């Protein structure tokens, strides 16, 4: 699904933010991405949703080397990726409904289908009463839920969620994680970047740990022990 080989990334003339990143995510896997603030989690995700090209190394996505792809192929690939941005990035002048419907509109889904799917999902994330509001009139947590709904509405093949529960209380946070698990069972590959230890402990998935620009993979067995000995 995703394969990074010797990836390096630097912004402008600064030091490398990511160095020698090597990993491979299987189709249908569910991974947490964690690490201290400023470690490069968002940067790594940016590479995965093709928002940046790496300074060096080779990225293979959906079985294709992204270097050789044309502009429109990249566009098509992006349509298969859902992203929850850390800062939400809702379109400020579109209503909640239209924001969530956006990925469907870009792929020219029939309007009737859009209506059904979007309304159902908005009810599910608890925003049924806020459909026509503009993002700026929503609370932080509500905006985050809109961002999540938008990322999942088109049933992406790959879902990248950056700190998706940072503004949510635990109840609704767990509810949304369950939504992601459900999507994962239906075949979506998922990567969730998070600081939330509790969350990671509660849901048993491999962790990609970023530290000082380098990636370590921690397989479930390790944290299962943590979990048994730990709090939850």
């Amino acid at each position: 699904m995703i394969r990074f080989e010797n990836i390096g990334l630097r912004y402008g003339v600064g030091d490398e933010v990511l160095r020698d990143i090597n990993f491979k995510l299987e189709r249908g896997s569910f991974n947490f991405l964690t690490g201290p603030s400023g470690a490069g989690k968002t940067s790594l995700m940016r590479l995965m949703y093709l928002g940046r090209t790496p300074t060096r190394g080779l990225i293979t996505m959906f079985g294709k080397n992204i270097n050789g792809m044309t502009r429109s192929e990249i566009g098509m690939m992006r349509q298969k990726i859902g992203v929850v941005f850390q800062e939400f990035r809702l379109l400020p002048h579109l209503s909640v409904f239209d924001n969530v419907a956006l990925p469907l509109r870009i792929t020219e889904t029939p309007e009737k289908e859009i209506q059904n799917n979007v309304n159902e999902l908005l009810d599910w994330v608890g925003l049924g009463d806020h459909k026509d509001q503009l993002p700026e009139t929503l609370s932080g947590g509500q905006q985050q839920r809109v961002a999540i709904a938008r990322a999942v509405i088109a049933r992406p093949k790959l879902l990248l969620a950056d700190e998706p529960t940072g503004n949510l209380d635990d109840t609704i946070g767990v509810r949304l994680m369950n939504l992601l698990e459900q999507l994962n069972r239906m075949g979506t590959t998922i990567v969730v970047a998070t600081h939330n230890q509790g969350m990671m402990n509660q849901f048993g998935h491999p962790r990609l740990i970023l530290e000082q620009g380098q990636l370590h993979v921690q397989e479930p067995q390790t944290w299962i022990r943590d979990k048994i000995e730990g709090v939850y």
Partner: protein
Amino acid sequence: MAKSVQSFTQKAGGRYDLPLNRSGNGRFIILLITMMTFLAVLAISASFALSGVAAKWSTGLENKLTIEIPAGETDVSALKVEVKKKLDSIDNISKIDVMSDDAIAALVAPWLGADFALEEVPMPALIAVETKENTRAFIDKLQKDLSEINSAIIVDAHEEWLEDFLRMIGALKFGAMFVSLVIAATAIVAITGIIRARMSEHRPDVELLHLMGASDAYIAGQFQRYALRLGLLGGAFGLFAGALGLAIFSVGINAGDSDLFPSLRLSGLAIFVLFCLPFVSCALCSTTAKITVLRSLARMP
């Protein structure tokens, strides 16, 4: 709920993912384009009207020469025939009108008194000539040719003050055309600037659409559609305002219609050019929008 209505009407009339159709900025851009078009209408019609004036004066007077064979010379009527023959042989002369003695008498009479016995006075001869092209060189040549027949013959070209006048008209026409150009340039700059400002204002949104996999055409199309509408509206309003302005202006100038100063009635070509303005403004706006957006998109990976 007001929001819901807004969202509905937005859906009904052509959907935008970007808030282009919302902000008050749109109205301001339309006003700006209106004013630009208005100025362009004035400048272009001035330019055409001045062409008209120049043409009328040129054909009305510039191509006319008067040839005088002064009286007192030995044989006016013999010279007259000879000169006429000479003139007939010149290609550049389109019309020769030998004035009758009566006509000359009528011209001279006021100076001499009506009762004066004209028969007793030797009459000068006057030949009005229309040329196809009235160059300095031609006039000099004609004067020389005729002087060979008789050195007293005078070619009168009316030209000194007319030349001045036509030069002034020409300068004004040039000025008007130049001003049209500057206005067009200003319009382009203004529109480009505004579209670019809109772009940079909505850059995060554009980038988001891009990251979601929207094609360049999809994104540029939204801006283009928006710019097209602004350009068309602004152009149409401007044309309308300009036409109104011209109407008022020409009523003023034509109050006492005269032959020398033609009315501001515009030629078919002029009217056609003016009616093209809204489409020009349209094309200008949407092309600018498209180029700006595509260029900005090309910079995104």
